[in-house]
């Protein structure tokens, strides 16, 4: 407003900045740092028969994480999440690109359509998919109308259903960041590439893709990380046939009364995220401009 506060700001910038940051710092401390610390401490503890955590140091839990059973589950979870991410990029990129290049007055409306599913609860949306995919469901009903002799498709409770569910749940998280970088994309760069002799495909691979890479990287992070840990979709749409790491962790807390082991799995899981994030940051940010 007036110049006076700005001057005093300059004289005491530090504590004012901290004051502004305080709510966030408190929030992070309370809900991120402390729980993470508890998780890590628990992962080195033992437990009694009731599931009480005993504060005696042990590496047993990490030893169990390295059991091939759980390593294999980690690998499979990464596989599912990776496939989900790839499909989300393949499906989400064209959508994000079209929205980002659409006329301005249309963009908000189209984005709204992407967001609409979020207005209903996750469980309801998942049950809607069950209604579509089940043996006597909408999809098979439609197929029956088209070809009465064909045998119904067996979709629900298959790995395909799990991937459908994961892609459906996380697609918007891929579309939004890609849209963000497509929208920022300078149209004259595309024209320049055309002008320099690049056909549509070359423009896409040599200019559009590299310039929207930060969006793809952000989307990949937003889809891959939560998809690795998802357990509800695996249970509801996959029939819980194939355990993924999220299910195993959930099981330790909800059924097996083994919090320390669950904590150890969680800690390894978080380390995995950190590594993914670091890779993405290096990979994605390398292309981003740094101020001259």
């Amino acid at each position, binding site marked *: 407003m007036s110049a006076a506060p700005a001057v005093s700001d300059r004289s005491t910038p530090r504590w004012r900045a901290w004051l502004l940051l305080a709510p966030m710092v408190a929030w992070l401390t309370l809900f991120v740092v402390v729980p993470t610390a508890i998780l890590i401490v628990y992962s080195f503890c033992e437990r009694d*028969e*009731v*599931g*009480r955590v005993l504060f005696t140091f042990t590496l047993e839990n990490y030893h169990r994480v390295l*059991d091939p*059973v*759980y390593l*294999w*589950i980690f690998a*499979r979870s990464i596989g599912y999440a990776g496939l989900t991410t790839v499909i989300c990029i393949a499906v989400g990129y064209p959508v994000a690109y079209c929205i980002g290049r659409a006329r301005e007055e249309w963009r908000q409306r189209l984005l709204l359509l992407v967001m609409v599913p979020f207005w209903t609860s996750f469980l309801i949306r998942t049950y809607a998919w*069950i209604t579509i995919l*089940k*043996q*006597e*469901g909408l999809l098979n009903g439609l197929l029956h109308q088209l070809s009465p002799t064909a045998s119904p498709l*067996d979709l*629900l*409770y298959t790995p395909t259903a799990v991937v459908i569910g994961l892609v459906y749940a996380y697609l918007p998280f891929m579309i939004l960041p890609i849209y963000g970088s497509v929208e920022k994309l300078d149209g004259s760069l595309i024209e320049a590439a055309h002008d320099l002799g690049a056909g549509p495909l070359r423009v896409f691979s040599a200019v559009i893709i590299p310039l929207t890479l930060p969006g793809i990287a952000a989307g990949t992070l937003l889809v891959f990380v939560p998809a690795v840990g998802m357990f509800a979709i695996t*249970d509801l749409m996959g*029939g*819980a*046939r*194939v*355990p993924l790491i999220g299910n*195993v962790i959930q*099981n*330790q*807390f*909800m*059924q*097996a*009364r*083994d*919090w320390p*082991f669950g904590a150890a799995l969680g800690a390894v899981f978080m380390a995995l995220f950190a590594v993914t994030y670091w890779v993405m940051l290096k990979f994605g940010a390398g292309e981003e401009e740094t101020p001259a």
Partner: protein
Amino acid sequence: MKPLRLLLPALLALLVSAVAARAAGELNLFGWSEYIPQPVLDGFTKETGIKVNFETFASNEELLSKLVAGGGSYDLVQPSDYAAEVMIRQHLLSPLDPALLPNLKNLAPEFRQRPHDPAGRYTVPYMSGTVGIVVNTDRVKTPVRGYGDVFTPALKDRIVVLNDTREMVTWALYTLNLPINTITAENLARARPVVASWVKLVKVYDSDSPKTALLNGDVDVGVVWSGEAAILWKENKKFQYVIPAEGAHQFIDVLAIPANAKNKAAAHQLIDYILRPEVSVLISEAFPYTNPNLAARKLLSAEQLANPASYPPGHPKLETFRDIGKDAAAIDRLVTDLKSAQ
């Protein structure tokens, strides 16, 4: 400032109502979700003036971890048999006063003094059930009598089972004629190939609502809670319930008072209220499990009593679970490994 000014009166009002409720008596109940009909609690409050604060849990482990951690102060809890056994052993429950529970006489003797509470000092059975086989007889024409008839290649990908590792291992132990409550490495090693062959046949694992896959026609046979089977049977008589010939897990969900309960008198009042036949029958109508209350059973209709999932005919071999402590981890690893290895 404004939100605070609005908030203060609201807080005051809340405080006042809390004090008022305490004056009339208040009861903190921690029970299974979808297991205690709201009209039962409303009727109790109307009659006694005691307000019931109802919190729910989804698994015995959730209940156990809350009680063990000392979180929350509950006056009445609703564990299953084996969880009650742990609580008794850990001195987490308070003995009941039979003098305050005149309606105990309504209970069938076979539901009291079971291994989890041999003297019947700590627990009162609420509802009981079994884990058995439900068959869609329209689709499955071969006779199904036991686990061996469910887990056959002929029914591959047409089976739903509970998503519970101990249940599955228990069924395997039954088919091998091994004890279900004594878990040894040797017995698990023998059960392993059986479970391994079963996981290849199962289509859906679901503990929360196994009836859904059956109703949707995605599977034709299941090993499920008897309550789920009873609902299916009410829906359509083609869903037949069979207690497996090899033996079946029976569960008894009980009411018990935690050692640190503040309002034990009110807890006794609610237990005795639930034991009244006309109250107990309300529970049976909403949740068609096996009602241990003989007086209440007299009030049930012929059709309700004929539901094989609620009141199985004959004298099947039924056993409750005992707490197996850390052996649960071995079972969990075994089943996870086999499911994962497909």
